[in-house]
């Protein structure tokens, strides 16, 4: 019970509720269901990328190329739609996911086969992917009037009152949660990040596991690429510039240990929601965007401090009463 109360997820939920309550006290309309749906929808791209990033961070890596991947996938979708409006949106969507997965797989292969540190690999591919957007688009924008109605309409279409964009966020979260908690690959992510040496001795191929993590992260970035471009009805070189850092921030706030091997999907969801709510709530209560950045930054530092504190060794259990207390505290 104590463990449940002091868990990262509970504390973060509390912080989110507090944030909502404070905002509501100044502007009650913020917590109207329709507005909450809008906030969640607005946060969905961040959530989708953060889910992919979580998987990568769990394996003790980092993917800085997600925003560039998103932008390139989005640009390819937009240009394809502009050139051939007849192609069904479902096909474009599948292409976006595939293209993103290929870009993620390139990151993964470089980390796996050449053993280059992930931060260096993705810093490089981040620049390359942005460069490719410029090459294929000549730096030109693809604007709303060049896109088909079906293309831009999908993220906004409503199913059961929720926009499709939000549904994609929910579906991705469910899928990644299922994979992480219920498949051998998901278990391997934790093992590889938690103790790479032990993973090797267990017969887990560390490089291959990291490769799959990057591929999944890339696929989600590709999906987010189409959704982003269709939602805002515009594609250009610099969309989602610097967004990768917000994605990493969501993971860190959600309690995903940057050292790998620790964290939950629920944490990531809450971390993304926390940032999304701050972004949407502060303008409503008339706080300047610069405060927004400061508050997000403070949240990151607080989250990391809490992580380090909980990770710090509590000392060995030598006292009998400490042993007894622990046994009582543990769930049966």
């Amino acid at each position, binding site marked *: 019970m104590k463990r449940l109360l002091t868990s990262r997820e509970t504390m973060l939920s509390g912080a989110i509720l507090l944030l909502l309550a404070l905002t509501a006290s100044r502007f009650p309309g913020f917590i109207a269901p329709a507005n909450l749906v809008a906030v969640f929808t607005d946060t969905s791209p961040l959530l989708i990328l953060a889910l992919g990033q979580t998987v990568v961070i769990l394996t003790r890596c980092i993917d800085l190329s997600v925003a560039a991947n998103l932008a390139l996938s989005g640009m390819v979708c937009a240009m394809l739609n502009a050139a051939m409006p007849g192609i069904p949106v479902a096909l474009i969507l599948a292409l976006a996911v595939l293209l993103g997965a290929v870009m993620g797989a390139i990151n993964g292969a470089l980390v796996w086969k050449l053993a280059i540190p992930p931060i260096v690999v993705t810093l490089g591919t981040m620049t390359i992917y942005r460069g490719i957007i410029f090459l294929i688009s000549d730096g030109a924008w693809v604007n709303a009037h060049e896109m088909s109605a079906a293309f831009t309409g999908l993220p906004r279409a409503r199913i059961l009152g929720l926009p499709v964009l939000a549904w994609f966020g929910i579906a991705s979260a469910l899928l990644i949660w299922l994979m992480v908690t219920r498949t051998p690959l998901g278990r391997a992510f934790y093992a590889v990040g938690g103790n790479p040496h032990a993973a*090797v001795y*267990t017969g887990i191929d560390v490089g291959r596991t990291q490769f799959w993590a990057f591929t999944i992260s890339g696929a989600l970035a590709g999906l987010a690429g189409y959704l982003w471009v269709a939602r805002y009805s515009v594609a250009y070189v610099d969309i989602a510039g610097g967004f990768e850092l917000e994605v990493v921030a969501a993971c860190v706030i959600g309690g995903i240990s940057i050292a790998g091997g620790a964290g939950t999907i629920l944490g990531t969801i809450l971390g993304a929601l926390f940032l999304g709510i701050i972004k949407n709530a502060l303008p409503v209560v008339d706080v300047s965007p610069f405060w927004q950045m400061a508050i997000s930054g403070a949240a990151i530092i607080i989250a990391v401090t809490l992580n380090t504190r909980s990770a710090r060794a509590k000392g060995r259990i030598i006292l009998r009463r400490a042993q007894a207390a622990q046994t009582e505290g543990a769930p049966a």
Partner: protein
Amino acid sequence: MQPSIASRDYAPQTADVPVLALSGITKSFPGVKALDGVSLELFPGQVTALIGENGAGKSTIVKTLTGIYQPDAGEIRVAGKPVRFASAQDAARAGITAIHQETVLFDELTVAENIFIGHAPRGRFGMIDWAEMRRRARDILARIDAELDPDTPLRDLGIASKHLVAIARALSVDARVVVMDEPTAALSHKEIEELYELVDRLKSEGRAILFISHKFDEIFRIADRYTVFRDGAHVGSGLMADVDEADLVRMMVGRDVDQIFPDRVKSPGEEVLKVVGYAHPTEFDDIGFSLRRGEILGVYGLVGAGRSEVMQALFGITRPSKGAVKIDGAIKVIRSPADAVANGIVYVPEDRGKQGAVIGMPIFQNVTLPSLSQTSHRGFLRLAEEFALARRYTERLDLRAAALDQDVGNLSGGNQQKVVIAKWLATQPKVIILDEPTKGIDIGSKAAVHAFMAELAAEGLAVIMVSSEIPEVLGMSDRVIVMREGLIAAELEGDALTPETLVRHAAGIGEDRP
């Protein structure tokens, strides 16, 4: 210039007054008493050899007399005066320097900088006087006949030259006690001879030398005195002239039987593993042995003899350059640990923290990690089956834990070891390799591991036990392979299995050096 320690007080002393004397030194670590009231005396102008098995307390005493560890009890006297070393700096100031196995020097600095680091000659305004430093470095290097340029970066030098730099450093502070911890371990034959000459020169200058080595030939070549430790206790010391190899071996290993090993009915079955002509370019060569069901094969040797390296190759972590493995009579190629596990070979590594358990993961997930194909269905894990599997094997090992979803990190060392073993048993292997299975765990857990090993063998599992503890090797093994310098030195069985034969083959006593 600072007055050197030499000019202060050691010149007039005679050879029978110890320059450094430790007495009644006791040092405990959680769960282990590393040193129990030991004494050690070092005399000016003499080489004292410190002899003992792995874990006898040699490195602990070195760390104590160089100020890295502070003893719980006991006294250290320098030239008759009691001292306390609160830090390594204190010991260095008292004229004690150590040359370690892996030399503690700075690769990116030059030879001269390494010699004078921490006490570089200063010129005007407290700036380092480079010209003076080079000149003095050249003087010291000339004194030990080392043909080294003071401006060479250290990373360009080989191990032998680095030792020379370390010795030059000891001379630059005018050390009166020089500790050499297995200095010849990585040297060639010629370099070893040069080192011996240098030791003779240090002796003639009146310095006291503590020489730690596993090699009996070199102990008899250069030492004047000996001190033998066993299990953290002092068992004897005296003049080398009064003893022979057999005496020293007896002191090293002759212990009371303080551990009781399980009785085993030895009934080896058919051959399950055969290794033929295994070789690696740098680690081992010509390794061949066979293993039967229900057998415990001990693998003994000094640290660094290549035992773990062979096992890692067998498990697919490294690739051998030559050789073959037969499992149940069929030749198998093992390219990765996953191949090894699939072929029924599992490896419980020595360093549990680093290579064994995944800290931060619950117990049950650690246990089922290599068996997920068993507990999953159509690509999805089944938690209930995982719990059942984990419970089955942890109960067999009598694991004491509040709950199976508790973090492994909260368990004691012995219980973590049980989790790692349970993990491997759950894969239902044919061959289990245990690398130092009882290193660093308490007596009670040791007995449990031994009993369990016997039980596994009785059930028909073939066990390879790599161990540096002689009683364990003798008490548990049906057969023992002794490795030395990457080769199999002997395969012993029955009456040939004695502490003396193990130590002789491991240290190469009575054989010519290649």
